[in-house]
């Protein structure tokens, strides 16, 4: 089925539905109450139009609405746009805005604000170009109609219109000529979403209050959301057990601690949601220098890894094995690729073939593996597992953990490493999250670009074609070819797909579990107490 047709169909079906269906609890939602959300990382500011990441995303998607909202299957539903049509050639999208919608200062939300928001995101968001480079202009024939006109087909457009990626921000506030990235109102924004900015005490909390004038009648249910910053993960979990925190997304929990938490009758532990982030873990090889310039050496490393053992034994079955550059919930994910299932003899043979013979101690080579410390289970323990496995095939690994994230990031982005453990996000469309890792012209000195230095013109051509193909089946076939190529060339070897863990108290009803997790409007969350 073509994606254009599917979008058109969804638009018709969902015309009458204001928002998402919420099947989790049949009970009548109780209005009122304060939800305390635990957050690990401090927030830079509250405007997701010019800042990516979860710290801004959780409060940002409460403060700002988007044209559409996305459910747990990547399907867009009406939000600020009550309906939309896509032209036959897929080159123009006409959105009809909800008519009574107002910003938190009382000003009406118009198509001009939509055009302004898109321009601001395109120019300032870290993924602005990937998301909206294909947009030629936004026409505003009347205050309630916005027409996005493309210069080339752009299959990722609808996914890029979620509140997190394209929040609708007020032009009369942010359009005053000040630099958007450092605009003072980013710290106390006037938004369009279900909750209003009330207070932000840096390093302590953000308080959001119910927007009584929200454009969806009767929502939100909560009176207040307090986002409480707790740096220490163990303290955050204690706070949750004590009830000082109700809901803890991106919970920094060790996998082995999950069963213990599940024993607590007051708590729920969930690994649902966040498919739009799609975090995947991998071993990254610096392909510029020996020994990892040789695909046989890279393959030998891959053959030494037993993913089933890692996932099942090391990580208690919480993550999933993952061989593909696509997250398993992505519609483009497929299992048809070279998996390099564990085979130590094969690994040794490949190393022989590549000319790395064992010395009298059985050592073929000495290499250094750098690993970041932000995913202790998959990446830190993974690095230790890799060391012990590679020893079996004669590769002597020295492990090195740079002091903190900035040190590691600088090392990787200056290409000063042999191989490293890494993690990248898929984002809701490969154009945003996957292409950047593989395109030849994205070999950059910056983190989460093509830092490994991989360049294959065939792969480039496949990605570029997939980035402008609207027909879903054709697009999926292109990505299938792409992943076959990269699993042969092996610039990265994917080791697993690790879900985000959310822990929350029983009293939290309808916790946000769409593909965006907590980075979606929480207008349907309510408290049963």
């Amino acid at each position: 089925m073509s994606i254009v047709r599917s979008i058109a169909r969804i638009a018709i079906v969902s015309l009458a539905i204001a928002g998402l269906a919420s099947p989790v609890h049949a009970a009548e939602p109780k209005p009122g109450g304060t939800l305390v959300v635990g957050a690990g990382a401090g927030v830079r500011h509250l405007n997701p139009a010019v800042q990516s990441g979860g710290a801004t995303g959780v409060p940002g998607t409460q403060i700002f609405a988007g044209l559409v909202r996305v459910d747990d299957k990547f399907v867009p539903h009406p939000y600020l746009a009550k309906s939309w049509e896509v032209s036959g050639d897929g080159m123009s999208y006409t959105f009809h805005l909800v008519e009574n919608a107002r910003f938190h200062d009382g000003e009406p939300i118009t198509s001009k604000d939509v055009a302004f928001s898109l321009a601001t995101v395109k120019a300032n968001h870290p993924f602005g170009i990937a998301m909206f480079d294909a947009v030629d202009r936004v026409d505003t024939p009347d205050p309630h109609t916005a027409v996005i006109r493309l210069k080339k087909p752009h299959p990722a457009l609808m996914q890029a219109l979620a509140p997190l990626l394209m929040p609708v921000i007020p032009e009369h506030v942010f359009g005053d000529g000040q630099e958007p990235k450092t605009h003072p109102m980013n710290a106390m924004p006037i938004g369009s979403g279900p909750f209003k900015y009330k207070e932000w005490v840096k390093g302590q909390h953000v308080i959001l209050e119910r927007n009584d004038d929200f454009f969806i009648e009767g929502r939100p249910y909560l009176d207040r959301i307090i986002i409480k910053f707790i740096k220490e993960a163990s303290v955050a979990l204690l706070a949750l057990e004590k009830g000082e925190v109700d809901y803890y997304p991106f919970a920094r929990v060790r996998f082995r601690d999950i069963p213990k938490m599940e024993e607590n009758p007051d708590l729920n532990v969930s690994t649902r949601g966040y498919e739009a982030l799609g975090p995947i873990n991998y071993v990254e090889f610096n392909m510029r220098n020996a020994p990892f310039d040789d695909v046989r050496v890279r393959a030998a490393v891959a053959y030494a890894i037993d993913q089933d053992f890692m996932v099942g034994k090391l990580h208690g079955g919480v993550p999933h094995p993952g061989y593909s550059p696509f997250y398993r919930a992505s519609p483009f994910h497929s299992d048809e690729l070279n998996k390099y299932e564990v085979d130590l003899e094969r690994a040794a043979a490949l190393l022989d073939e590549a000319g790395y013979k064992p010395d009298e101690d059985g050592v073929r080579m000495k290499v250094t593996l750098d690993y970041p410390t932000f995913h202790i289970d998959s990446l830190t323990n993974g690095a230790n597992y890799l060391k012990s496995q590679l020893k079996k095939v004669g590769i002597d690994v020295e492990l090195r953990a740079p002091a903190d994230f900035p040190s590691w990031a600088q090392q990787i982005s200056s290409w000063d490493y042999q191989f490293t453990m890494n993690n990248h996000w898929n984002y809701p469309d490969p154009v945003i999250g996957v292409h950047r890792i593989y395109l030849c012209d994205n070999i950059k000195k910056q983190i989460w670009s093509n830092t490994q230095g991989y360049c294959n013109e065939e792969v480039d051509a496949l990605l570029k074609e997939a980035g402008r193909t609207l027909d879903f089946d054709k697009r999926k076939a292109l990505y299938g070819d792409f992943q076959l190529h990269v699993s042969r060339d092996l610039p990265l070897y994917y080791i697993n797909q690790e879900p985000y863990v959310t822990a929350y108290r029983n009293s939290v009803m309808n916790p946000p579990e769409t593909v965006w997790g907590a980075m979606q409007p929480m207008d349907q969350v309510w408290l049963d107490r």
Partner: protein
Amino acid sequence: MQLTIILGRRLFYAAALIAAVVVLNFLLIRLAPGDPALTIAGEMGGATEEIIEDIRRTYGLDEPLHHQLLVYMKRMLSGDLGDSLFFNTPVMDLILARLGPTVLLVMTAMTLAVTLGSFLGVLAARNPEGLFSNLITVLSLVGYSAPVFWTGIMLLIVFSAMIPLFPLSGMYDVRLGATGLALAVDVLHHLILPAFTLGIIFLAQYSRISRASMLDVLGADYVRTARAKGLSERVVLYKHALRNAVLPVVTLAGLQFGSMLSGAVLVETVYNWPGLGQLAFESILRRDHPTILGILFFASGMVVVANLLTDLTYRIIDPRIRTGRS
């Protein structure tokens, strides 16, 4: 007259010291691995080259180092510590908002450590081989050697999670929205565990020092004289002996103000106390150079002031210093 000269000289040294600290910090911080612009981009989940260049330009990170230093010093003389790379707000505002909580925490912990420590030391000195004295020695050692974040978490588990006497984190319960007296009580409630955690490391040293110096003093002639005069043990102990025995304690307190501030970094992080220490910790992880420099500037200023105050306190407690250079 003499006091003003001494004070003037001290102030001059203090200013020179702080200036040196600023320059040294400015250069040291740039030796640490990690580029602020890349870190900001990393926090955003990656960014294009243009965005990174833009960040560098916005914050003047593309200028040569000596130029950056000159600009920084010039702005500093007018009381401007620059803007935070992370929050985009003036560093001065960030610091002023955090100064109060840190001073409250450190002063409470200090008072606790000094008074309780000296008191325990004096008690121990009365019977240096007794069970009580040994108990204090052991406890002091444990308190001194346990890492502060471990002590913090343990105290939280016991006195907040298992026995719910104290709140877990923060300076006040934002859900209550308390003001006035109720807020003060709430802050006090939140203050107890962190102040105790920070105090406990230093308590050990004060009790050891005051025990030792008390033992010294108790063997002195004038104490024997006081006893011979028939003064009660309490008067001998607290009025005659303690006053002299407390001098090393004051010295230590002045010297330790700096380490107390660094201890606050960890305590504030564990307890989520909204002070300078927590800000310092996070700013280092974010490579927020202007904020780190601003905090170091304030911290060195506070240490210098603490040392000045120590000198003055000395003059009050010990008349010998007041009358001459002997």
